[in-house]
């Protein structure tokens, strides 16, 4: 499990796992309007694929901060571009607010479109 450094102080370093960040992103995704489920995320490694839910991939950014890939299922009939834009802004805001990490990039992948239930 990849660990990402949050802080370095005189007393030591503080790390957060990419799994913890993924969970924060997932909780935020659940409340995003238009998102009715999480996708599979083809680029996600096997370790992630074993988890109960796997719509979020977190990787350290080459410059600073982290990059997120969000694989989602959107409700049928909605404007996909508009929903994707609000998903991007909501999830990156929430992850930055909770972790203090900079979210350098968010890729939103719409895996499927379907009615709820």
């Amino acid at each position: 499990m990849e660990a990402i450094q949050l802080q370095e102080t005189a007393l030591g370093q503080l790390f957060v796992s990419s799994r913890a960040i993924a969970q924060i992103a997932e909780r935020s995704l659940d409340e995003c309007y238009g998102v009715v489920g999480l996708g599979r995320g083809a680029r996600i490694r096997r370790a992630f694929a074993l988890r109960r839910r796997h719509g979020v991939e977190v990787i350290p950014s080459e410059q600073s901060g982290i990059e997120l890939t969000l694989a989602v299922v959107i409700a049928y009939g909605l404007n996909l571009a508009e929903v994707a834009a609000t998903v991007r802004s909501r999830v990156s805001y929430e992850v930055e607010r909770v972790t203090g990490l900079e979210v350098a990039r968010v890729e939103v992948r719409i895996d499927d479109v379907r009615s709820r239930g």
Partner: protein
Amino acid sequence: MMSDLEVDSVRASSELALVRRLALAALEALERERQRIDGLNIYPVPDGDTGMNLVLTVRALVEELDASEPVEQAVFRRDFARALLMRARGTSGVILSQIVRGAVEAAPVSGPIDGRALATMLERSRDAAYSAVAKPAEGTILTLMRELADEARGRRRKTLPLDEHLDALVERGEAALERTREQSPTLNEAGVVDAGAAGLLVCLLAIARAVTGAPVVTPAPALRLVSS
């Protein structure tokens, strides 16, 4: 004597004119309150654009109506709902377009809108709005929509003029908007009501006034405490 097609065309053109008048009233009210609504927008992302998104969404709606020909009613309703969804802006705009789509789809094919029809329309609006979210947060435009549908359902057997039903809905909406302050920890901390819910209430108020012909009071009562 008019053929069925002509009757349908007259019906469609009067429906178009009515929807257009109500949409225009909502647009004008949103334009007046835009800054106040933007100022409330601290959740889920404090980007202060809820009012603008609602204005752009309803403006697109009015433009669609201006461009619409009075076609067969079913065709009009289908095209209108589709255009509305495609041109919605922001989360609050997308939700508002679902609300309008539900109401238009459930509106009676002919005859006046009575308490029962109003309840059917608002329940369909609520269901359309809730159908596109996995875990709805409380204290949002969705909560307000649900309370409006509950109110309409509770009153559906009362034979009252439409404007009295609408007045009761506005009253319930104002109380529900006030409660959003307590329903969300984020709103509670900031001491504000929800921006999207406020926008929906502004629309409802404008529509109620347009139906009764009463002048619109500005700012809307529920927004009086909010500085612009």
